């Protein structure tokens, strides 16, 4: 019996028993467990009878009580303020200040959203205008987060792509940005630059130096900076540390710190909470006028605000148990386990793939994916063409059919012409990864043989 994400296909005989789906960045689907403290607080907020429950730790009850007090009528079923529960926004701005070594943040500039995707679309929608040569263009990396590209299509923004440099570990090169924008100006009005740091899918983590260069670039070119930083907690040790765009911007001082406009996005979906289904995220807007915020929030008000449970999860992410709290030990153990699992998976993928012909893999400095390059025989590329497919899509389709492994083809995310990649999510149990790698290797060698 084949089991696929809840639905079942009966009577189909497959050479595998269970599907392995690492095509999306979904930790829980990949077998990772939620953080206990998060779920305890959420449960108590939903069903306040639990506040009398002796099995729940005191800090859980305290947090739940605190959060419910901030909800209208003390219920998580009420609407919240349009931009989010003020207490949650304060906790977010405190977090940002702590994270950025004291660089100030204000709850006034924070908007809670149902997932970072909603916030990304919110900002995009504010930016788009014009038609033809005046149509808003957004400068986006290749490869990119594909849903952002789709959102651009939906909202009518022109794509102005710039290539990340695979040979240099998928580095962002400002010369690339420059030539992209120059070319973009011929057919649209580029107004924003979208960066993902740490990167999805490449795993590249930008150094402070690069970030400064990007900031100088957007200042010169008058671009609004959209910094998707949802993977900021997943940086691997021993490499480049994560530093936020906001921090670098402020530490560069005027004129940059006063003029460059920045939107920074974060979410509970990635990182070690992995709570994709709860839809919790926020955007911090930097250097936007209060009059603009007011207009933006008026528009937002018609949408009834973001999911309360998501806001609760986000509050816990930015204000987790501290040393000395009853839940701290378990909390930090659970986070450590996930960090270690991710690191282990990053190493393991590299280890295994580097010994298989037909794969090259850049180092993964951060993020939750590996994005190895496939070196496919020309006959495979030809066959794909005949079928009207990209070669990596053919590869992934066959891999799914024959081995029950679901990956994302690089062609969905963008890549240089003539290259092929696959993306695997690494937020999964080590056991699942082993099964995956075994099946992948088996399939890959067979595939190479078939088309050589």
């Amino acid at each position: 019996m084949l089991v696929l994400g809840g639905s079942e296909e009966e009577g189909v005989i497959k050479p595998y028993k269970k599907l392995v789906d690492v095509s999306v960045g979904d930790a829980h689907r990949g077998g990772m467990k939620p953080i206990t403290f998060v779920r305890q607080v959420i449960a108590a907020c939903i069903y306040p009878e639990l506040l009398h429950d002796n099995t729940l730790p005191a800090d859980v009850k305290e947090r739940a009580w605190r959060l419910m007090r901030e909800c209208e009528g003390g219920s998580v079923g009420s609407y919240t303020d349009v931009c989010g529960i003020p207490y949650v926004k304060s906790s977010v701005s405190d977090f940002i200040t702590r994270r950025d070594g004291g660089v100030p943040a204000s709850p006034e500039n924070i908007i809670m959203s149902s997932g970072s995707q909603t916030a990304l679309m919110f900002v995009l929608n504010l930016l788009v205008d014009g038609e033809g040569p005046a149509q808003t263009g957004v400068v986006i990396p290749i490869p990119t987060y594909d849903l952002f590209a789709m959102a651009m299509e939906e909202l009518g923004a022109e794509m102005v792509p710039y290539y990340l440099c695979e040979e240099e570990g998928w580095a962002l090169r400002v010369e690339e940005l420059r030539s992209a924008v120059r070319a973009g100006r011929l057919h649209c009005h580029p107004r924003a630059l979208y960066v993902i740091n740490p990167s999805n899918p490449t795993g590249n983590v930008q150094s402070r130096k690069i970030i400064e260069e990007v900031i100088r670039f957007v200042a010169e070119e008058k671009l609004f900076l959209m910094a998707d930083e949802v993977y900021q907690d997943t940086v691997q040790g021993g490499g480049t540390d994560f530093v936020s765009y906001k921090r670098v911007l402020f530490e560069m001082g005027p004129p940059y710190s006063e003029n460059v406009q920045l939107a920074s996005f974060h979410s509970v979906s990635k990182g070690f909470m992995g709570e994709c289904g709860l839809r919790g995220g926020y955007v911090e807007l930097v250097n936007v006028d209060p009059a603009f915020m007011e207009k933006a929030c008026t528009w937002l008000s018609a949408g009834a605000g973001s999911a309360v449970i998501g806001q609760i999860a986000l509050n816990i992410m930015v204000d987790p148990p501290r040393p000395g709290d009853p839940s701290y030990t378990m909390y930090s153990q659970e986070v450590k386990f996930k960090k270690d699992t991710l690191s282990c998976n990053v190493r393991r993928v590299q280890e295994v793939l580097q010994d298989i012909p037909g794969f090259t893999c850049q180092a993964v400095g951060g993020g939750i994916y590996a994005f190895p390059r496939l070196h496919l025989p020309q006959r495979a590329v030809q066959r794909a063409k005949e079928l009207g497919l990209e070669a990596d899509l053919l590869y992934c389709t066959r891999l799914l059919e024959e081995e029950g492994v679901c990956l994302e083809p690089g062609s969905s995310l963008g890549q240089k012409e003539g290259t092929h990649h696959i993306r695997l999510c690494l937020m999964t149990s080590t056991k699942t990864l082993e099964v995956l790698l075994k099946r992948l290797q088996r399939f890959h060698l067979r595939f190479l043989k078939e088309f050589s």
Partner: protein
Amino acid sequence: MFSFREAWSVTLRGLCGILHSAARQRPLRTPAMPVPAPLSLSFGRAPWWLSATRRSISYKMSENGVASRRGKVLTVDTMNPRIKRVEYAVRGPIVQRAVQIEKELKEGAKKPFTEVIKANIGDAHAMGQQPITFFRQVMALCAYPELLNSSQFPEDAKNRAQTILQSCGGGSIGAYSTSQGIESVRQDVARYIEKRDNGIPSNPDNIYLSTGASDAIVTTLKLLVCGEGMSRTGVMIPIPQYPLYSAALAELGAVQVDYYLNEEQCWSLDVSELRRSLEAARKRCNPRVLCIINPGNPTGQVQSRECIEEVIKFAAEERLFLMADEVYQDNVYADGCQFHSFKKVLFEMGPQYSDTLELVCYHSTSKCYMGECGFRGGYMEVINMDAEVKAQLTKLVSVRLCPPVPGQIMMDLVVNHPQPGDPSHSTFIKEKSATLNTLAERARLTEEILNTVPGIQCNPVQGAMYSFPRITIPERAVQKAKEKGQAPDMFYCMNLLEETGICVVPGSGFGQTEGTYHFRITILPPTEKLKILLNKLKEFHLRFTQQYS
């Protein structure tokens, strides 16, 4: 057989092929979304800027590219002009002032009242309504499955939670669901609809779970709005309306086509008025959509079956796409009134209509007897939607990944609640009835008290959660309002707020016949408080009338 994202990648390219070759003339069935250029990121094709054809076209460099180097990129002047036009009265300036007053009270300011009562927004829990115990128990169990070992939860809640968790990825509500919504939830929704509609079949594939009904409504409008100038999509909405509609139409740049509900006939919908509105609209746009809110917001009217049949006939005749907002379907109070779903009536009218009329119906977890606004649960059922447009819809919802899973679960509980014989059944029925009875009582009370005020006329509140009384404003007050640049009923409501702390929404935020004034007040405050509130309002009105005579 693919993961939802894999299906997307494949479908997208296939779909683009279909769209490019389609040259349909039938206006209702053409996918109305701008045809997206296939993602030109790679796909083996040369990036567009390397194409010789492109290079040979010289574009005049956009002046904007140079001129706006000074100043910020994103300001009130440079933001999306459509979004700038959006207003939403329910949370508008009067509410902002109410929040400010609350702050002032907290800081010790002396006022003729001690608290602000927010009777502006349809938020039942905020006004003290209690959630349904079973729903919260199941949700808590789903959130923290360890509780399945606890003795404080009834067996049916535990079983339910286990069933739900089995349909979540990795057994967790923290996994993404498919974009259309968890399949077992959609199946439950379909069963609920069938049961509600005397067995008329409902297909789970036609159900799309959403982030509240608002999300589904805006998504539908996105599919429908297209064209330019005279052929720009017109959308017919009732006046008075729920201002989400006008906000969405402003954002999408659609033409708002007003049809007036008949206040003298208890806010009834007359097809003659629909016809008048449509014919006038055809002179300036392409009206393609008819929006109905039943039971009505803000008016509370519950449409009779005959009325619904007439609307369906009209929509069929005039080839209009029908959007039926039915989020208040359990909130029916008046004797002689009954909720009839548009779908049920459509199908009972026979294949002449049910085979062809395009209809979308909306429901939500925010209203009725559960009032779970914060969970953002909702769904739409699409009926007779063109297959290619439906594929576009599926693609559109996938851009947002998925609706919040807790909201999907809440929707599941609403449509599949405890049945006779279940341990939780009697408590459930008790709670549901108590809430609905209380609302009915308050609906009656509101109408009664307001109608004792000379200068206030209140239609019966047949359903929903609001009263929309008409107020007579003395001419001098109208003048004063004009001087202040305010709509007269906004002026009235602001004064009401400042003098009594009662926050209601002026009728101008919902639309009304020229020269008439109204306000919308919710019937949600606890009954004793509501009595006090309404009497304070009465006193204010008399005072105000006297002051400006």
